[in-house]
């Protein structure tokens, strides 16, 4: 993997042997625990007003309260359904579009300029236009997530398909493979590893953009919960939201990573 992809994904691969040593694995907990202790201590001596900083325990307590009242589940399920719908539409259409654009010179000629130009516009800059076009309802949030996922996955699958070695196609020609077999046996297996990486990037972008969209305009969802907390100065609710967005992003990223490692036995590297 190039430095670029690793930076985009935040993967730290240097010196794996060193990281695997068990004693050092325990040492990995030192700084996070120290951080939590420092946070608790600063909150306890009230260095900042309790309106600005509450202790980790209070955040946990608020988390339980929100969980018990069912409020949190509501927000979470709304966010997840938006993310799920938008991401699956965007990623699947992006995947298809990328492959077709890479394999067909004609499609590439027509669509590639528009694609390359639109790709330059960051999703977050599209939020205001999308609000005007789609209103502030569900469609707006799903559309912005779809956009974020589509372009990332389309680019990944386009470049992956372009990168398939010519030899593979020559072999398929020599064996006179039908188009269907060409796709299922050659194209898809060849592009799967880079496409999974693209899906990972696309997912983390979709999640970020969804949280941003919910902060701006929503009546439910994790972002909205934080926004409400901010408006009524409930720093504990905001912090629950911050920790949860981090955990969810991290958790699903791990799922993709697991998929990369276990679903692709023919993967090199």
């Amino acid at each position, binding site marked *: 993997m190039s430095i670029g992809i*690793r930076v985009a994904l935040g993967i730290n691969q240097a010196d794996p042997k060193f990281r695997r040593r068990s004693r050092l694995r325990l040492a990995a907990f*030192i700084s996070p625990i120290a951080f939590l202790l420092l946070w608790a201590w600063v909150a306890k001596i009230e260095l900042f007003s309790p309106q600005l900083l509450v202790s980790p325990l209070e955040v946990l307590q608020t988390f339980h309260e929100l969980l018990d009242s069912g409020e949190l589940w509501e927000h979470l399920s709304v966010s997840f359904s938006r993310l799920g719908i938008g991401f699956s539409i965007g990623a699947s259409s992006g995947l298809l579009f990328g492959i077709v654009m890479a394999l067909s010179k004609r499609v590439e000629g*027509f669509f590639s300029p528009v694609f390359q130009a639109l790709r330059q516009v960051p999703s977050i800059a599209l939020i205001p236009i999308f609000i005007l076009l789609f209103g502030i309802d569900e469609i707006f949030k799903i559309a912005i997530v779809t956009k974020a996922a589509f372009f990332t996955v389309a680019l990944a699958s386009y470049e992956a398909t372009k990168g398939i070695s010519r030899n593979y196609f020559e072999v398929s020609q020599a064996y006179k493979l039908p188009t269907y077999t060409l796709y299922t046996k050659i194209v898809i297996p060849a592009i799967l590893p880079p496409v999974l990486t693209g899906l990972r990037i696309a997912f983390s972008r979709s999640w970020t953009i969804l949280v941003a969209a919910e902060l701006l305009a929503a009546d439910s969802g994790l972002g909205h919960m934080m*926004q409400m907390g901010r408006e009524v100065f409930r720093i504990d609710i*905001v912090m629950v939201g911050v920790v949860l967005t981090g955990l969810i992003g991290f958790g699903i990223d791990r799922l993709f990573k697991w998929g990369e490692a276990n679903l692709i036995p023919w993967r090199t590297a």
Partner: protein
Amino acid sequence: MAYSVSIMSTHTLSKYSFLNSARGWLIPVGLLLVWEVMSRQSAENAYAFASIEQIYHGLVEILSTGELQQGIAASLQRAFLGLLIGGFLGFSIGAVMAQWRVADVLIGPLYHMLRQVPLMGLVPLFSLWLGNGDPSKLVVVCLSAFYPLVLATYESLHQVESKYKEVGDVLKLSRTKTFIKILLPAALPNIFTGISFALAFAWLATIGSEILFSAGAGLGNIMMNAQAASRMDILIILTALIGLLGFLMNYLINKVGQYLFRWRNLR
């Protein structure tokens, strides 16, 4: 397999040979025509689809009031200041982590823990802590440049070939000297890739924070005002401009990189 899933592809310009082919123009021109026709259908449509004429008038309007120039200056300034501060801190921490194992073990996990929160998710927190003005935005932009540069610096320093390090051992250079004379020059091209990523992230974070924090100057704020006033024409101008500026910055930094590292023999 050669592929790259970059934020902005490094060889984007070569893809722009479509300027010579008629085919590539067909869809953009077609879309423009459809857009223009839609805008002329009804008063309601004219509101959602700004006509080309409206867009032109909108451009003249924000240019003549100086709003646009001011916004561009404010946003660019924020992006570069954030890149400078966040990038420098990121480079320092990445270098310290790569040089001392103790620092690596201590800082690494904390860094990876804090990095998990999407930057835009931190907006409500910063708005309570620092208000809705420039300080909050600057912190978000700094963080956006900080995270990738820690990683890029750390990784690039680790990837320096061991034979270079051995030269340092043979010459009995001190640690500082080895770092300055051997490790840093060898890692610099890769670190520069990290900087170009940090610039792209900083630009995103600038626009994002300006959209999410309500107060102050900048392109994102102009957009939010235009959205509140339902000015599609201005939104289209600004969105295109943001894309264009991002593209230009990416192009320029890649050119600078090619110039700076022309001594590197690429196979």
